[in-house]
């Protein structure tokens, strides 16, 4: 990558949302804001290698995006387009760049509960994080046209249904913030679950950092950031030599990023809200020098807290595994045997693991076959088949 392309990519990561957000605030027009920002970055890629990189790349892109927006509006002769044009010209004349709230306003609006969840996620990645439609479509395994349509419909609903472009007032902030955090966690997991989609994990981390910086007193936001930082600190240890995903127990802990773990642990609020509790659980693993030294007593306690807060079969499953690790496999297996989670492959996966620990290899192999049948072909299934073969049964 040339130096110019590197700087373009850098500014895209750090300032895309701000540039789009300011243009939406000025014009109220989401499509115009995104298209003009896209134009500005494309222009930078063409011009910077020839003209040199400007001394303030972000400011150059902001101005160029606004000029591009004016060009686009000139071709539409309506009164409404004229009003938007005047607003942009004013913003350029006043030298106003962007205000701190622009990115936060954008994050909250993209995560509004009146939008379908899939649209919230797509819009956040496109409008706030600046990922392209093909990138987002690939990450969520849907055709590009489907993703483009999803974004068009979301922008249309924001405009037509009157979803306000703002950070919600105090009385709505709590519930809306948890909606924002849910979107960011989903984006992170989508990125983290596949090696090649790390761009999504990076976007989620950077957005979570932005939310914490702008709302430092919100413990759940800090809880989510701590959770993401701690999980991400294991990224280099998750993949084995053959590209297979490794369990926590198999990972070489010397490859965990200790500085990031220290940072994540320092961020962690008291385990009160669901993200803070999950961060505390991941923190227990991060602190353990080896798998055998994991504090399962504390992890079971944290799962109890989490279950009391937000009961879900998935949390129950994880708690059962933790109990199996604390009190021995049969205690965990007993809890799992009562669970009904049809088609959820982590249930037979957990059973297989505990059966192996109890030395019941043949039963474990049966469970493995069940998991494989529920897994789509790919890296993950190959890993499972490798494990099954190792059992030799």
């Amino acid at each position, binding site marked *: 990558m040339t130096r110019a392309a590197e700087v373009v990519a850098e500014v895209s990561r750090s300032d895309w949302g701000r540039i789009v957000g300011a243009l939406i605030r000025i014009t109220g027009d989401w499509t115009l804001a995104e298209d003009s920002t896209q134009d500005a970055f494309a222009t930078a890629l063409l011009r910077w290698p020839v003209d040199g990189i400007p001394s303030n790349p972000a400011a150059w892109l902001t101005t160029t995006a606004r000029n591009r927006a004016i060009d686009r509006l000139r071709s539409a002769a309506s009164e409404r387009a004229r009003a938007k044009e005047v607003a942009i010209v004013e913003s350029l004349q006043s030298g106003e760049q962007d205000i701190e709230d622009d990115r936060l306003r954008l994050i909250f609006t993209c995560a509004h509960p009146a939008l379908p969840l899939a649209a919230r996620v797509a819009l956040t990645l496109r409008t706030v994080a600046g990922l392209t439609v093909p990138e987002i479509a690939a990450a969520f395994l849907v055709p590009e046209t489907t993703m483009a349509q999803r974004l068009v419909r979301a922008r249309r609903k924001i405009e*037509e*249904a009157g979803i306000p472009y703002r950070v919600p007032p105090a009385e709505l902030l709590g519930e809306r913030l948890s909606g924002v955090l849910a979107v960011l966690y989903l984006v992170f997991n989508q990125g983290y679950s596949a090696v090649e989609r790390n761009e999504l994990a990076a976007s989620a981390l950077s957005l979570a950092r932005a939310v914490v910086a702008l709302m430092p007193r919100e413990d759940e936001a800090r809880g989510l950031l701590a959770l993401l930082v701690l999980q991400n600190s294991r990224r280099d240890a998750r993949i084995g030599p053959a590209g297979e995903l490794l369990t926590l127990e198999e990972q070489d802990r010397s490859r965990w990023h200790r500085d990031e773990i220290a940072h994540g642990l320092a961020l962690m609020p008291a385990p009160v809200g669901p993200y803070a509790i999950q961060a505390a659980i991941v923190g227990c693993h991060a602190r353990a020098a080896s798998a055998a030294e994991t504090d399962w007593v504390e992890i079971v306690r944290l799962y109890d807290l989490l279950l009391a807060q937000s009961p879900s079969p998935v949390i129950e499953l994880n708690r059962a595994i933790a109990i199996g690790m604390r009190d021995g496999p049969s205690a965990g297996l007993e809890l799992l045997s009562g669970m009904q989670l049809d088609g959820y492959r982590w249930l037979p996966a957990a059973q297989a693991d505990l059966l192996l620990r109890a030395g019941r290899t043949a039963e474990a192999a049966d469970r493995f076959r069940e998991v494989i049948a529920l897994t789509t072909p790919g890296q993950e299934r190959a890993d499972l088949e490798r494990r099954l073969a190792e059992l030799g049964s």
Partner: protein
Amino acid sequence: MLFIATDGEPDALLEQPGEFDAWVQESAQRGIRKVGNRLQPVDDATTVRLRAGEVLVTDGPFAESKDWIVGFDIIECDNLDEAIDYASRHPMARLGRIEIRPFWPTEY
């Protein structure tokens, strides 16, 4: 009260332009039509419920077509959050559900 419905695609084409205006004008002149308006597409609908004191907001219209429409209120708000707030204070938000549908804009 007339509910005007479609499956998304009209079952037939307009026979001539201005059919809507003609119907509105005639019924207004005869003092029959009191109020009416075109709504934005169903994609723009938002459903509000109040359960256990919590306002539940979901994208889209009523899930079931067998839901009964039992009344209507026309409100004017600055934005969707304000509409959600008023809808959530309606007793039927607790007893049933309320679908928010924006009117088709008249300016522009």
